[in-house]
């Protein structure tokens, strides 16, 4: 009986996450079918056009900020210490200024008893890119699901991450930059769990990133 409730509770993040991922996976295919539009050459940097692809590798830290208990608005400390996070993203340009991608992030943080909170967000991402000479400012919005594990328990939540990344163009195929993102993780209680345990998790994500264009 409980399994039924758990599956029902998981349906929302799973369905929305999968729909978002499918949508973004379809975009490059749609792009292939569309006729590439010539972009205006950009001074001091490489011009990207529809269909250009890239991988982004990131290494940094996940910094727990606070939990917000939604039943009464109480802000609680997370009881976690910052931990490392790595990620890999596949990105596809829609135009000079827009790109979409899929990113997988892996990280962990420690509790005071050195128990480990593992996190694996998988997100679909859309980016708006502003070019400033040889620099690029990426304004990203990611939406997806987060697989989590702590002690013997595992769970799946929604995951939302606004992010800003600033890159320096090193050569035509490599950009190096710094990213700062904010993780919002709403965690709803499932059937059998107390209703006042629904919380919004807040984390900061700081990383050094490298874009490889191909």
């Amino acid at each position: 009986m409980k399994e039924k409730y758990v599956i029902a509770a998981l349906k929302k993040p799973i369905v929305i996450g999968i729909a978002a991922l499918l949508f973004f996976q379809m975009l490059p295919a749609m792009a292939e079918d569309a006729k590439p539009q010539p972009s205006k050459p950009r001074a001091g940097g490489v011009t990207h056009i529809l269909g250009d692809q890239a991988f982004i590798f990131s290494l940094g830290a996940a910094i727990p900020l606070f939990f917000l208990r939604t039943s009464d608005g109480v802000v609680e400390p997370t009881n976690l210490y910052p931990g490392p996070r790595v990620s890999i993203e596949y990105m596809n340009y829609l135009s000079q200024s827009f790109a979409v991608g899929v990113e997988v992030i892996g990280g962990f943080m420690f509790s005071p008893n050195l128990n480990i909170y593992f996190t694996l967000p998988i997100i679909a991402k859309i980016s708006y890119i502003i070019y400033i000479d040889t620099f690029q400012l990426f304004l990203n919005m990611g939406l997806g699901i987060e697989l989590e594990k702590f002690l013997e328990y595992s769970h799946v939540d929604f995951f939302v991450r606004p992010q800003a990344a600033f890159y320096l163009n090193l050569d035509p195929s490599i950009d190096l930059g710094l990213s700062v993102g904010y993780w919002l993780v709403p965690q709803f209680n499932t059937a059998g769990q107390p209703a006042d345990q629904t919380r919004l998790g807040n984390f900061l994500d700081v990383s050094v990133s490298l874009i490889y264009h191909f």
Partner: protein
Amino acid sequence: MKLIRNILAVCSITLFAALALSCNEGTNTLFDNIINDTPIRNNNQLGNTANVPAMTKIGTTYYAAVGKIRFRADSATIWDSLTLATGIHYTLATDGANLYCGVFDGPDGSATGHLYQYNPGTAETTVVNIAGLKSIVKVKNFGSNVYASYKKTDNTYSLWSITTGLELPGLGALNLTAPIVDFVFDGVNVLFVCGTSVYMGSTMGSTAFDNLPSNPYAGITYDTTLNRIMVSTLNGLIFQSDDAVGSNWTSYGPYTYMRNSTSTNAPFGEFIMVSANYFLVGTSGAGFWYIDTSSTWAADRWNGTAQAELYNGAINSFYVDATRVFFCTIGAGLWDNTYAAGAWGGTWTRE
């Protein structure tokens, strides 16, 4: 290219679905478990996986049975060792001046054993003479009254009063064939659980409560506030009498908990009263449960899932020292925390 993308899409959807459906949900949310993962002082003195069947205190010194005896001052953190005899030291009690310890001579249940008396003041150890003793099941004290549950050489079971130096009157005639796994002295009578029955022993002899159904009884206590008897069973039941002599009983439960997505009856064991109307009952595998006899009488499982080894632990016995409660576990060491005004302290200690 499209084919590869479609294959990747199917694979990723399958992976997400598999990961999601394999979620292991606890009784609390994941974030709640993280918040409550409060510090455990873990200097590993007794070992994180130690079997600690029992503990007691004499004066200002704690004693724990962990195969041998370990002891420390209540103001210290270092545990010293004490061995009374060759064999496994597994059950402890005190009359206030002496330590009583049951020791198995060998590692298996068929082995013989003895009850030893140790005086910390003189460091003198003597064997307690119990007529017909084969081995000790358990020793407990109620104030300065010490009783030992024991197996006889004829393979029957009985209770011995250390204070009087006698077997409980009439108990030998019952020829009990199951161990007396728990007992309590209410100041007048000795109440005990044996196999599927609960008995009351007095100077007039011992008789079973025939108004209780047959159950695998495991624990018994006496509520000194309400003057009632409580018994627990291995199949998740709690019985409460409506008077001091068990004229009528009320059944509660079965209390269940989720384990590996299966509803399981809580395998209850020993009780402890931590304050008036407030009892804990141990289990073998589901930590400990609360019972508030002043209100609903419902048993609720302690929700400290972050202390996973205690939460899922087998708690053989408890010891209460003023506001500090000790949890003697099988396989997960000795835990303690303070308890006051309905709340546990912030630090769970594993000795």
